[in-house]
């Protein structure tokens, strides 16, 4: 197999979807001043709930809804603790991750009576959509058409959020709350409302991301299958400067790297180095963009020095 061919890009887009969705969720939280490290846990809950939902309802669509709903619940738990009870967002986020890992593995055992992974080849997955017209375009058709519908959803979501922030009133006000909570409150904008909205939306997005993981290509759930994708999403969010289009770009970049590193194994460059790149890139980006970055009141007050 060659290093770079068009099927690489096809693979990239597929891997990008969960990260993109979760990163958009993280972006919403960041824009209201909350650094949500619990994305990992939320995606995992979505992944498990997707499989479980499909198992019980035998309907992929309902399964996705259930996945989104489950993650939404846990996101609201996160929201309550952080926004209402004013607990520290890092602590709660880490706890959600632990809780998700423990709970999903536990339920894997108690509901499906298996350890390690649950795999049912008879279960219907999300499948793929062949887009008429586009699929016949040479080259582009191979890349773009034939993806899971959630992949298209993810890309559309990024564009939708761009419109949301920069064209609608609700999005404008949400940005305001993130930039200057005190000033916003003097104008009657209650921070809690926007924060809970953002967290809830984040939950739904992560749930869908999880569903893509467990139902998208192969219908399977394995313990801890998110493997750090939630943190990569966080990194993609930071690299994309919490901007929907920036995140679209950074997620594609990471997805590409993911796909390339699998290929590179055949060329004896250790995968560890390609896997490091997203993180190093983010540090570099934070360095170069430190004066222009997105800063909300809260995130810039993390250190009092």
């Amino acid at each position, binding site marked *: 197999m060659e290093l770079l061919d068009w099927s690489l890009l096809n693979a990239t887009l597929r891997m990008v979807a969960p990260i993109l969705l979760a990163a958009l969720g993280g972006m919403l939280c960041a824009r209201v001043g909350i650094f949500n490290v619990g994305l990992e846990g939320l995606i995992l809950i979505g992944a498990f709930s997707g499989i479980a939902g499909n198992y019980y309802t035998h309907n992929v669509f309902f399964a996705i809804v259930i996945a989104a709903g489950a993650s939404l619940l846990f996101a609201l738990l996160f929201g309550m603790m952080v926004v209402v009870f004013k607990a520290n967002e*890092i602590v709660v986020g880490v706890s959600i*991750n*632990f*809780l998700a890992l423990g709970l999903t593995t536990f339920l894997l055992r108690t509901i499906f009576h298996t350890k390690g992974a649950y795999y049912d080849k008879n279960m219907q997955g999300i499948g793929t959509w062949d887009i008429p017209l586009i699929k016949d375009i040479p080259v582009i058709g191979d890349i773009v058409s034939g993806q899971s519908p959630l992949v298209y959803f993810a890309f559309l979501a990024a564009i939708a959020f761009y419109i949301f922030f920069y064209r609608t009133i609700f999005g404008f006000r949400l940005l305001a709350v993130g930039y200057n909570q005190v000033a916003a409150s003097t104008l009657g904008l209650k921070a809690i409302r926007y924060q809970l909205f953002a967290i809830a939306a984040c939950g739904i997005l992560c749930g869908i991301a999880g569903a893509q993981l467990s139902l998208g290509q192969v219908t399977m759930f394995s313990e801890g299958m998110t493997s750090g994708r939630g943190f990569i999403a966080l990194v993609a969010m930071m690299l994309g400067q919490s901007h929907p289009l920036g995140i679209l770009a950074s997620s594609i970049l990471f997805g590409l790297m993911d796909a390339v590193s699998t290929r590179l194994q055949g060329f004896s460059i250790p995968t560890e180095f390609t896997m490091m790149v997203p993180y190093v890139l983010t540090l570099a980006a934070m360095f170069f963009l430190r004066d222009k970055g997105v800063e909300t009141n809260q995130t810039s007050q993390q250190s009092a020095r």
Partner: protein
Amino acid sequence: MIQLQKLLKSLIQPVIAVIFGLAIGGIIISLTGGSVLQTYTELWNGAFGNFYFFSTTLARATPILLIALGVGFAFRAGVFNLGGEGQMVVGAISAAIVAYYLPAPGIVKLIAAIAAAVVAGGLLSVLAGWMEAAFKIQLVISTLLLNYIAVLFASYLAGHPFQDKTGSAALAQTPMIEQGAWLGKLFQGMPLHIGFIIALIGALLLWTVLRYSVFGYEVNASGKNPWFGAYGGIHQVKVMLFSMFISGSLAGLAGGFEVLGSQYRFVDGALTVPGYAWTGVMAALLANSNPIGIIFTSLLLAALQTGAMGLERNTDIPLEIASIMQAVLILFISAKFTKQWWKAKKKGADIRGAA
């Protein structure tokens, strides 16, 4: 007398949290058809049932305790060091490499390896601290990112240049170090090694420093009210960098001890899979960053984890119940659910709602 009252007051919250966590675990178990009584019995047995299990618990507590001490110390200084996992891993790989390749008698290898672990972990941590001081890159983020970079780098080292090429299996691990460089066991045949004692001594040392030394005073002050500290002439950046170094070197030591005392080599993933670092963070938070308290919370969490392993061996209940209980515990603690909190909230509402 007042001291005793105060001590009891500060213990109430963690105790309630623990009870709550165990209760939730019990509820989940009974919901899935298990026996609650049997569960708690097996949990206890798994952690403390016989001497072997007991020493396993203590052995598991060692890295947790060390990392928790480091994280707690940083918290005291008002600094968020979430890089424990990466610092532990670089400490471990440094120890493994030095202990194997240094041409010296066993005991020298051991000491050099420990020193390497301490320095490696400390430097990685200070790197993040420097990035914040110089470039305002927040610690919370940089330590998280460095975790991945460090773990991946160590993984590479163990899988390629420093890989154990003997034997047929191509595992990502370094060669086994000679017996002369091993950190001795406390009891024959039991997994507990001297590192545990050193960790306990470390806790006492930190407590003493925090309470009785000038540096400890400055650390506490920086954490509680940084402006007051600046007013009093405390060099905030210096305190932050020192705290980061201490915090990182303790994590590095944790990794070093695991290599020198338990596994006698660096095995890729052996330190990250059990989640020592995040458990350490939780232990520090549960104990409110008090070094002596951290001893107990580390033991508690370690016991929860080994107990759950025993639980899984003897029942149908998966060991992940421990993670669930742990998470609930921390969530409860972080909610600051005490009478004082409610009172303060109400007072705030009164002042604001006066209009």
